[in-house]
């Protein structure tokens, strides 16, 4: 039998307490700070759970495939509606296990003897319980769901780029990194001021923060294009590997910083209720990635990503990353844009936070 929850109001300003670690609050190097995605996902999830009416204890038997797809990808859109997973509480091990077929979605007995939706291993042993919830008013929760799916996608993109970035042993130019982090630092200052300000003043601070983030993104998009052009100039059989690696490490740094800027910008716009803007920001990011993947540069023979791929020193598991992965990134961003167009669909949320009877 389905049950309903009660709506609890949360303090709006709590959502702006996103700089938790000391480096996040005082540091000057963005790449040394937290990636913030878990903070964003946790805050959006908490607000969504407390301010939305959900129908719980649903029968999952007809939805096993869709639930597994949503946990693997963060969200899944199908005929029956849209499923979004509480990504922050599903570990990478669970996601990989589902992808590889080691784990599957099913039901397991709680200590009390009731059957509950769960992730199970090959021997039908419990890995993790979860709860499937259905939004009673889907339109109300749509913007949060879309923000959540955007942050999930950006988090994945950021982690993948960070991972492949370890393969390049280029020179680290701290002054360059600090320059590119500056606009983020200015925005951080405004956000911290906004978290303690009154409603009107808060909006002004957040507008200023958005302007800094926009400027920072423009700088990063320009820088990445400039670095790729320099890479295209490294021609001939006697090109310096050291110079190539330095350029590749700069490109990597830019690519790591961009999702962080985009993530914070999208989070703040969602906080301010400007959902159309969030889609535009994501569209700009998609356009930049698409340009790197499709436009020929230099002498017109290769795209930027092909050039990066030709010169990249892959290490084992990451081979062909710059050829294959951006396609997936573009698909993930495209799906995020599609989420906002789902206003007439049912919305399901796969919540993995409550694990009272869990035995893993």
């Amino acid at each position: 039998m389905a049950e309903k929850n009660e709506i609890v109001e949360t303090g709006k300003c709590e959502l702006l307490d996103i700089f938790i670690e000391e480096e996040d609050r005082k540091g000057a190097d963005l790449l040394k700070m937290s990636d913030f995605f878990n903070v964003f996902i946790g805050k959006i999830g908490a607000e969504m759970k407390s301010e939305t009416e959900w129908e719980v204890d649903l029968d999952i038997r007809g939805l096993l495939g869709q639930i597994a797809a949503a946990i693997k990808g963060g969200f899944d859109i199908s005929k029956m509606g849209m499923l979004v997973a509480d990504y922050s509480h599903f570990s990478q091990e669970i996601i990989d296990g589902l992808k590889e077929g080691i784990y599957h979605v099913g039901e397991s007995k709680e200590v009390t003897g009731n059957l509950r939706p769960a992730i199970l291993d090959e021997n039908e042993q419990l890995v993790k319980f979860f709860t499937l919830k259905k939004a009673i008013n889907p339109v109300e929760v749509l913007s949060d769901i879309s923000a959540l799916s955007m942050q999930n996608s950006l988090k994945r993109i950021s982690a993948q780029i960070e991972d492949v970035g370890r393969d390049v042993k280029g020179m680290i130019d701290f002054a360059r990194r600090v320059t590119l982090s500056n606009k983020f630092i200015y925005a951080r200052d405004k956000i911290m001021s906004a978290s303690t300000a009154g409603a009107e003043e808060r909006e002004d601070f957040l507008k200023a923060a958005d302007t800094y983030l926009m400027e920072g993104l423009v700088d990063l998009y320009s820088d990445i294009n400039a670095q790729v052009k320099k890479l295209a100039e490294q021609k001939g059989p006697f090109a310096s590997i050291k110079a190539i690696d330095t350029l590749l490490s700069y490109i990597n740094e830019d690519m790591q910083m961009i999702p962080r800027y985009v993530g914070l910008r999208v989070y703040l716009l969602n906080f301010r209720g400007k959902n159309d803007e969030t889609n535009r920001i994501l569209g700009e990011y998609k356009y930049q990635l698409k340009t790197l993947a499709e436009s020929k540069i230099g002498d017109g023979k290769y795209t930027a990503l092909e050039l990066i791929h030709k010169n990249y020193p892959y290490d084992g598991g990451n081979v062909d990353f710059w050829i294959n992965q951006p396609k997936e990134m573009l698909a993930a961003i495209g799906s995020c844009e599609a989420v906002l167009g789902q206003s007439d669909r049912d919305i399901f949320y796969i919540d993995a936070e409550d694990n009272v009877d869990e035995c893993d």
Partner: protein
Amino acid sequence: MNAIEKERRCKSCGKLLIDENTFCRRCKLKMRNTGGKAGGIISGLFVAALSANSLANDREGKSDVSSPD
């Protein structure tokens, strides 16, 4: 990226080749760098050997001049 020939991979690092044959650009540059270094060492040794030889010849010439017997 339709120029990529899907089945061809670098014989050294396994990277998908775009328009290269056998080795990718990165591996070719690495090989040339290594080859260049080895060539430098060999030519350095050759020059050192030549210098040592000419020095020895010089000394021999000088000792011939200093002993008139």
